C-alpha cells in the first residue's frame, strides 16, 4: 500500500497489474501470508460481516432488537439532507486534508530523499516523532495552541496582526490543521520511498541534455513520482475519513463527520442498526473511491510504461 515499490521490470509483458498482485507467487509465499489472512478474517472480515448484518436490523429504542430485516436504517440516512450533508462534509474534509498533506509533504520528502546533508537522519526522526505520540495527546496540544487564550492567538495579538482572537477551535480550520498534522508524517514517509525509487541518473541525463534543475524536476522526476503520490493520497484519504479523535475534540457541532455520528449511535443512543448503516455507507463509499483511484492509477502506470 505504501510507496517504495520497485518500478515494474522493463521486461514485463505489458501487464502493469502483475506488479501489485502476484501472478507467480511461489507456494511457500502463500503460506507466509496465512497469519495475515487469519488476522484479517478474524478481526476485519468477520466484524464487517456482523456490522453489515446489524445494519439491516430494526431499531426500537429502549428494547432489545426485534427480529426481522429492514432497509429503514439506510433510508433514514439517505433520505435526510442533513445526513447526506455529513457524508459530503466527511469526503470534502478527507480530500482537503489529502491535498494539503501531499502538497506540504512533497518538498520535505524530496529534501529527505535527494538531500546530501548530514542531518538527514535527524530530519527523518523529526518526521516520524509525531507518530510516537498518541493522537489524543497531539490533539490536546493543538487545543492548547489554538485556543482563544492560546499561544498562537497571543502571538497574533502581540504582533498586532489581529485585534480579536482568531477562532480556530470548533471551526473547520481547526480540524483541518489538526488532521493535516496527523497526516503529514504518513504523507512524507510514503513520498520519500517514492522519490528515492526514481533513478537519479534520469535527472542527470535530463541535465546533461540541457534542462535546468527546475525543468528536470518537473519534466522527469515529478511525473515519475505521480503514481506513488496517488497511492500515498489514497492512504491518507482513507485514514482521514475514518478519523474520529480530532473532529470529535476540535470540531464541535458545526462539523459533524460520519465517525462522530457512528460513535453517537454505537455508544450513546445505542441505535446500533442505524450506526451500523452509517458505518457501512462510509465503508462502501471509501472503498468505492479507493477502487476507482486504483484503476486510475493502473492506467496511469500503463501509459507511463508505454511512454
Amino acid at each position, binding site marked *: 500500500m505504501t510507496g517504495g515499490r520497485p518500478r515494474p521490470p522493463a521486461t514485463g509483458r505489458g501487464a502493469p497489474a502483475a506488479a501489485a498482485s502476484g501472478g507467480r507467487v511461489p507456494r511457500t509465499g502463500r503460506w507466509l501470508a496465512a497469519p495475515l489472512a487469519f488476522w484479517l478474517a478474524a478481526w476485519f472480515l468477520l466484524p464487517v460481516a456482523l456490522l453489515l448484518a446489524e445494519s439491516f436490523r430494526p431499531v426500537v429504542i429502549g428494547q432489545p432488537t426485534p427480529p426481522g430485516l429492514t432497509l429503514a436504517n439506510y433510508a433514514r440516512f439517505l433520505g435526510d439532507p442533513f445526513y447526506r450533508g455529513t457524508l459530503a462534509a466527511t469526503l470534502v474534509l478527507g480530500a482537503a486534508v489529502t491535498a494539503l498533506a501531499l502538497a506540504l509533504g512533497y518538498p520535505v520528502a524530496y529534501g529527505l530523499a535527494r538531500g546530501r546533508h548530514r542531518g538527514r537522519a535527524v530530519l527523518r526522526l523529526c518526521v516520524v516523532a509525531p507518530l510516537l505520540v498518541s493522537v489524543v495527546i497531539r490533539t490536546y496540544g493543538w487545543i492548547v495552541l489554538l485556543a482563544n487564550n492560546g499561544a498562537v492567538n497571543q502571538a497574533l495579538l502581540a504582533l498586532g496582526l489581529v485585534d480579536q482572537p482568531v477562532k480556530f477551535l470548533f471551526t473547520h480550520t481547526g480540524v483541518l490543521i489538526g488532521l493535516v498534522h496527523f497526516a503529514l508524517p504518513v504523507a512524507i514517509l510514503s513520498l520519500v520511498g517514492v522519490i528515492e525509487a526514481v533513478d537519479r541518473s534520469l535527472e542527470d541525463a535530463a541535465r546533461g541534455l540541457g534542462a535546468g534543475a527546475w525543468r528536470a524536476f518537473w519534466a522527469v522526476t515529478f511525473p515519475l513520482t505521480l503514481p506513488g503520490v496517488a497511492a500515498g493520497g489514497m492512504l491518507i484519504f482513507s485514514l482521514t475519513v*475514518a478519523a474520529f479523535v480530532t473532529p470529535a475534540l476540535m470540531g464541535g457541532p*458545526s462539523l459533524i463527520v460520519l465517525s462522530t*455520528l457512528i460513535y*453517537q449511535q454505537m455508544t450513546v443512543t*445505542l441505535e446500533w442498526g442505524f450506526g451500523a448503516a452509517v458505518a457501512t455507507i462510509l465503508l462502501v463509499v471509501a472503498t468505492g473511491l479507493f477502487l476507482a483511484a486504483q484503476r486510475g492509477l493502473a492506467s496511469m502506470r500503463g501509459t507511463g510504461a508505454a511512454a
Partner: protein
Amino acid sequence: MERGARTWATILTASIALAALAGAPGRTRPAGAQARELVFSGYGGDYGEVMKKLVIEPFERQFNARVVYDATGSSAQKLAKLRATRDTYTWDVTVLTGYDLLAAGREGLLEPIGADRVPNLPKLHDFAQREGQGWGPITSVDPLVLLYNRDRVKPAPDSWTALWDPKYRGKVAVSHVSEGKGLFLLLVAAYMGGGDEKHIEPGFARLRELVPQVGAWLTLSPQYVPYLQREDVWLTPYWNGRAQLMIDQGLPLGTVIPKEGTLAITNSFGVPKSARQKTLAYEFINFYLDRTQQEAFARKIYYSPTNREVTLPPEYAGRVAVGREAIGRLRFPDEDYLARARGAWVERWNKEIYDALKYQK
C-alpha cells in the same frame, strides 16, 4: 485511534465484535477455591481509586473475598456490553446510571433486588428505594451545578440565566446532548421555559438562543479542565462531584445550585442475571450502602449519599447536598422516558445547533 484502514472498521464494531468473539470461550477466570471472587464493574479515574481504597479493600477483608475491578467504559457502554453478552458471564456487580439500570432491568438483564437480598435498602431515602424500580438501589446522586470562575464572574451567579448573559459571550461551555451534562441542560432549559421532558420544545428554543454565547463545545468531563484552567471558559453546567475535585486541586472555581433548582443524575448498582457470585454481589451492595462507606465516599468524591443516616461536618455545606431537605430540592427526571426520547433529541440537537451556527455567521 486513527490507524490503518483495516483497524478502523474493527474499532467501530468493537462492541459487537468483541462481544461475539471474545465473549464466548476463554474468558473464564480461575474460580478461587478459598477466597470467593467478585468481578465489579466500575468507573476509572478518581472514582476507581476511592472505590478501591474505601470500599473494596475493607470489603475484601471483612468478607474474605477478592474483588476484580473492571474500570472500562461509561454506563452506556456497560449497558451495551450487558446487552451484547446477555447470558454470558461478564460481571457480578456493575454500576449503571439510573436510566441505564431501568433499561437493563426491563430487558431482563438484571436480578431484582429487594430488602430480602440487601437489608440496608430501607435505610435509604424514599426516592433511592423507588427510582430503581426494584432493579437496584440508587447508591448516590450527583446534581448538575453551575460552575463558574470566581475571579471573572462577579457577583457570583445565582441563576441559570447567567449562561445567557451577554457579558459572558464566548465564555460558556456546553456539552453535547449525547452526554449527561448536555441532556440535563436541555431539561433545565425546558423547565425554565415552562416545559418538561415530555414537552421539550422550550428547551430547544432556549438552547438555540444560547448558541452565540458558547465558546467551547465539549463532550467528556475531562475535556473541560484545560479550558477552565486557561480561563477560556468562565461558566458552564457541570457535575458537582467533579467540580468539587477541581476546586480541591486549587482552581479558582465556585459552584452553585441555581435558584431555579436543578436535576441530579442517579448512580445505581445492578446484578446481572448472568452473575456467578450472586450472594456475594448482594453482600457487596449492602456493604456499600452502610453508613460508613456512604459517608467516606461522599467526603472524597462529593457524591450525595442516599443513606438517610449519613451526616457530614459543616465544612461540606454547599459542597455536597446531604439530608432530606437538600436532596428533596433536587429534581429527578423521568428516566424511563429519557431513555426512549434521547435518540431523537441527539438527532434534533445535531441538526438544530448546526443550523443555529450556520445562520449566526
